[in-house]
C-alpha cells in the first residue's frame, strides 16, 4: 500500500495566504479562535489521519462491510477508530458547541475532512452522515428532539442516516411510496416503506441509529410537494434517552459495491409489523425543502471526496515517479546512459503537472466555497452575507460535479504514472479510483448538478448570481492585466471567461425555441464553468505567490532577472520553490487545460442535435 501523503503546505497556503481565513477571527462566532489554534487543529488532525485512520484503509477495503443473520458488521479496526475519533473530538468539529460540537469555521472543517477522507474514506461515512442528520434535527427539530438526539449524534454515541432513495424513486424523489400515517392521540406517525442505497445505514459500533426518513402522509399532495420528514430511531428511545425495544425497522441487505467497501450501503424496511414510529420534523410537506438545505452541505462534502482522494492519488504518484527508475533521460546520448527516475520523462511530468494543477484548483474551489459559507452564516455585513450566499449557491453544483469528475480523473492519471503497478492492488491506486467514483453518482448525480446549475442557479435572481461572479472575475483580471509575469495569462483566462458568458447567453435564446438543447449541453457547460473558475483561483494564487517571491528576493538581495540566483534560492528555500511552482501551475493550467473551455463553446454553438435525433 502506498503511504498516505498530504500536501500540507498547499492546504495552509490556500487557507492562510489565499483565502486569508484570519479575517474570520473578526466575526463574533469565531472571535475566540486564533491562527495558532487553527494551526494546532490542522496539525493534530493531520497526525490523527496519518497515524490512526490511514493504517486500516487497505485492510478495511479487503474485509468490507458484512451482512449476516440480519446484522451489519464493519471491520474491527473501525471500532477502535470510532472510539479514538470521538474521544479526540473530531466527530463534529464545526458544529454547535452547545451540543458537543467544536464550533470551528467550516473552512477549517473542510481542510480536516480532506485529510480524514484521504486517509480512510469508508470510515468517514459514519461521522459524515451522523453529523449531517443531527444538524438537520438541530435546525428544524423541536426542543425535545434537540435535547434527545443532537449531542449524542455530534459525539458519535449514536449514528444517523439520510433515507431518501427508494427502488423507483432515485433522482425523482417525488415518486416515493413510503407512507407516514398519523396516530390519533399520539405524537408519532406510523412509517411504512422501503429505502435503498442508505449510506452507513447500520453498523455494529453505535448503540442506536437515528434515521431521517422522507415519506408522504396519505392525502398530502402528490410529487415532491407532499413530502414530509421524520425522525425514525432504529431502537425506540425513552424521553430520558434510554434505549428501548426495536422500532420495527430492519436491514434487509447491503450492496456489493465497486468501492467504499467498508461502508455499509443498506436496504432498509420500515414498519413490516405496522409498528414503526416516526416523529415529524418541522412542518408537514416541507420535508424535501429541509433535506435540500442539508443536501447543499452534503454536496460540498462530496466534492471534497474528489479533492481528498484525487490529491492523495497525486501525492502517491509523485512519490512513485521519484523512485521508479526506467529508461535513460532523452537528452542523455552517452553509450552507457543510465536509467533515471521516471519523473525525468516529459510524458510522466505532463501527467504529474496535470494532477497538480487540477488538484490545487479543486482544493482552492472547495475551501473557497466553505469560506463563503462561513461568511454567509456569520458575517457582520448584510451585503457581504448575501453576496457570499449567492456565490455559494452558484458554485455548489460546480464544486460537487467538477471536483468529483476531476478527482476521478486524477486517480486515473495517477494509475497511468504507476503503469501496470497501478492496476494491481499493492500501490493502493486502484482502491482510490474505486473509492472516489461514487462521489460523481450520489448526492445528486453529476448530471443532476449540471441541470441544477443551468436550470436553477444561473436563473436565480434573474441571473444576478452569474453577473456578480462575472463582475468579480472581470475586476480581478483587470487588476493584474498589466502584470509582467501574469499579464500574459490574463488574456487567455479572459477569453475563456467570455466564452463562458457567451455560452450562457446563447442558451437563453436557443432554450426558448428548443428546450432540450441547453439540457443536452448542461454537463459540458458545468465543466466549462469549472475550468474557468479553476483558472481564476489558480491565477489568484499565482498572484499571491508572485508577491511573496518578490518579498523573498528583496530580503535575500536576489534580482528577479538573475536566473542563477533564483535557482539557488529555490534549491535552498522551500518557500521560494513552492511559490515559483505556484506560478508554473497557473501557467500550465491556462495553456494546457483551459483551452478546452473555448472548445466547449464551439460545440455549444454548433446547433448539433445528433444525440437527440439518433434512433438508439
Amino acid at each position, binding site marked *: 500500500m502506498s503511504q498516505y501523503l498530504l500536501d500540507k503546505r498547499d492546504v495552509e497556503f490556500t487557507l492562510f495566504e489565499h483565502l486569508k481565513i484570519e479575517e474570520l477571527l473578526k466575526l463574533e462566532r469565531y472571535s*475566540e479562535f*486564533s491562527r*495558532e*489554534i487553527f*494551526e*494546532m*487543529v490542522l*496539525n*493534530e488532525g493531520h*497526525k*490523527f489521519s496519518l497515524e*490512526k485512520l490511514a493504517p486500516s484503509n487497505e485492510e478495511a477495503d479487503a474485509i468490507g462491510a458484512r451482512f449476516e443473520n440480519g446484522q451489519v458488521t464493519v471491520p474491527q479496526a473501525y471500532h477502535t477508530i470510532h472510539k*479514538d475519533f470521538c*474521544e*479526540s*473530538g*473530531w466527530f463534529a*468539529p464545526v458544529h454547535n458547541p452547545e451540543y458537543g460540537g*467544536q464550533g*470551528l469555521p467550516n473552512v477549517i472543517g473542510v481542510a480536516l475532512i480532506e485529510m480524514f477522507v484521504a486517509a480512510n474514506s469508508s470510515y468517514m461515512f459514519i461521522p459524515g452522515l451522523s453529523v449531517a442528520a443531527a444538524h438537520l434535527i438541530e435546525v428544524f427539530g423541536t426542543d425535545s428532539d434537540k435535547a434527545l438526539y443532537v449531542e449524542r449524534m455530534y459525539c458519535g454515541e449514536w449514528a444517523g442516516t439520510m433515507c431518501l432513495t427508494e427502488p423507483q424513486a432515485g433522482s425523482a424523489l417525488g415518486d416515493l411510496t413510503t407512507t407516514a400515517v398519523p396516530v390519533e392521540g399520539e405524537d408519532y406517525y406510523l412509517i411504512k416503506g422501503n429505502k435503498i442505497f442508505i449510506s452507513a445505514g447500520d453498523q455494529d459500533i453505535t448503540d442506536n441509529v437515528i434515521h431521517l426518513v422522507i415519506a408522504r402522509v396519505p392525502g398530502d399532495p402528490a410529487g415532491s410537494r407532499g413530502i414530509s420528514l421524520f425522525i425514525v430511531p432504529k431502537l425506540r428511545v425513552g424521553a430520558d434517552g434510554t434505549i428501548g425495544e426495536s422500532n420495527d425497522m430492519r436491514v434487509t441487505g447491503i450492496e456489493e459495491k465497486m468501492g467504499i467497501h467498508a461502508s455499509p450501503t443498506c436496504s432498509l424496511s420500515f414498519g413490516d409489523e405496522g409498528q414503526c414510529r416516526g416523529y415529524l420534523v418541522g412542518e408537514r410537506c416541507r420535508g424535501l425543502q429541509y433535506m435540500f438545505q442539508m443536501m447543499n452541505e452534503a454536496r460540498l462534502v462530496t466534492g471534497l471526496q474528489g479533492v481528498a482522494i484525487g490529491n492523495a492519488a497525486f501525492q502517491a504518484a509523485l512519490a512513485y515517479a521519484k523512485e521508479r527508475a526506467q529508461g535513460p533521460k532523452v537528452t542523455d546520448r552517452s553509450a552507457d546512459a543510465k536509467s533515471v527516475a521516471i519523473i525525468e520523462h516529459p510524458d510522466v511530468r505532463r501527467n504529474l503537472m496535470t494532477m497538480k494543477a487540477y488538484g490545487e484548483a479543486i482544493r482552492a474551489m472547495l475551501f473557497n466555497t466553505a469560506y463563503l459559507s462561513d461568511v454567509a452564516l456569520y458575517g457582520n455585513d448584510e451585503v457581504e452575507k448575501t453576496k457570499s450566499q449567492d456565490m455559494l449557491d452558484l458554485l455548489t453544483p460546480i464544486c460537487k460535479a467538477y471536483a468529483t469528475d476531476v478527482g476521478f480523473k486524477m486517480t486515473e492519471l495517477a494509475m497511468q504514472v504507476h503503469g501496470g503497478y497501478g492496476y494491481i492492488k499493492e500501490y493502493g491506486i486502484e482502491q482510490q479510483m474505486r473509492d472516489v467514483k461514487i462521489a460523481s453518482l450520489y448526492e445528486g448525480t453529476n448530471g443532476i448538478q449540471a441541470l441544477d446549475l443551468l436550470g436553477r442557479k444561473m436563473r436565480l435572481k434573474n441571473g444576478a448570481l452569474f453577473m456578480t461572479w462575472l463582475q468579480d472575475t472581470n475586476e480581478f483580471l483587470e487588476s493584474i492585466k498589466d502584470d509582467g509575469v501574469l499579464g500574459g495569462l490574463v488574456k487567455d483566462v479572459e477569453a475563456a471567461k467570455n466564452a463562458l458568458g457567451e455560452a450562457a447567453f446563447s442558451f437563453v435564446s436557443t432554450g426558448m425555441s428548443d428546450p432540450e438543447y441547453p439540457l443536452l449541453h448542461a454537463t459540458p457547460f458545468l465543466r466549462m464553468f469549472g475550468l474557468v473558475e479553476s483558472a481564476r483561483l489558480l491565477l489568484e494564487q499565482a498572484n499571491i505567490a508572485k508577491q511573496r517571491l518578490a518579498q523573498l528576493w528583496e530580503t535575500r538581495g536576489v534580482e528577479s532577472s538573475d536566473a542563477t540566483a533564483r535557482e539557488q534560492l529555490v534549491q*535552498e*528555500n*522551500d*518557500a*521560494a520553490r*513552492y511559490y515559483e511552482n505556484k506560478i508554473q501551475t497557473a501557467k500550465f493550467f491556462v495553456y494546457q487545460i483551459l483551452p478546452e473551455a473555448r472548445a466547449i463553446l464551439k460545440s455549444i454553438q454548433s446547433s448539433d442535435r445528433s444525440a437527440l435525433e439518433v434512433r438508439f
Partner: protein
Amino acid sequence: MKILTTVKRVTDPDMKVKIKPDQSGIITDGVEYRMNSFDEYGVEEAIRLKELHGGEVIVVSVGPAEATKEIRTALAMGADRGILVETNAELDSDAVARVLAEVVRRETPDIIVIGKQAVDSDRNQTGQLLASYLDLPQATFAYSLEVADGWAVVGREVDGGTSTKRVKLPAIITADLRLNEPRYASLPGIMKAKRKPLDTLTPADLGVDIAPKVRVLRYEAPEERAAGEIVGSVDELIDRLRNKAKVI
C-alpha cells in the same frame, strides 16, 4: 503532586535538513518545527502521574517565542500551565540545564520527567546536567515508572538489557520511547489549552547566564552512501570484507 516536564521545539525529523553554504548552521527557512518526540513521552508520563496521583503539570520550554506552540500542544494534551524562557540565542545543553535548574528551584516540583534527548541535536545531556546542578537523584532512559511514598521505581533501558533503579523524590527521570504511548491532543483539549496560563520569562529574569560552553566549529553533512554492489560468491564477499573494507 507537582510535576514538571519540558518540551523542545525541534526541526521536523521527517524533513531533510540542509546545511548553510558557510557550514555555520542549518538553513532554517521554510523548515517545519514540532515537539521533540522524546518530550512527548515525558509530557504523557507527567499527565499520567497527575491522573494517578492528582496535582499539577507544569510544562517548560527554553527557546524562541515560537516555542509557545509546543507548550500549547502539551497543554492541549493535558498539562496545566506553561512557562517559556524566551531566548533566540544558540543554546548548548549546559545552558538549558542551568535555566531549567533555576525554574525547578522556583517551582519546587515533586518530580521532573523529561525526554531523554532531543531528536535534532541528539546530545542526551540536559537531564543529567540538570540533576547535577540541582544535586538531585536521576534515573535516565526510563521505560517504566512507578511512584509511591516519596520514591520512584524506574525501569531503565541500558546497554545490553534493562535495570531497575529506586530514587528518592524529587528526582529527574528521563523518558525513553517505550515508557508509554503519547496521547493525541484532542480538539476539546486544544480549545481548553488557549485559556491555560502561559508565563514568559527571560534567562535574565531568572538570573541565568546562558553563554555557551560548547563552541560549534562547523556543520557537515554525513558522506553520501555509495551505491551497493552485488558480489558473485560468498568467498568474494569474505575477500572484500577482509581486504577491502578491512572489517574482519
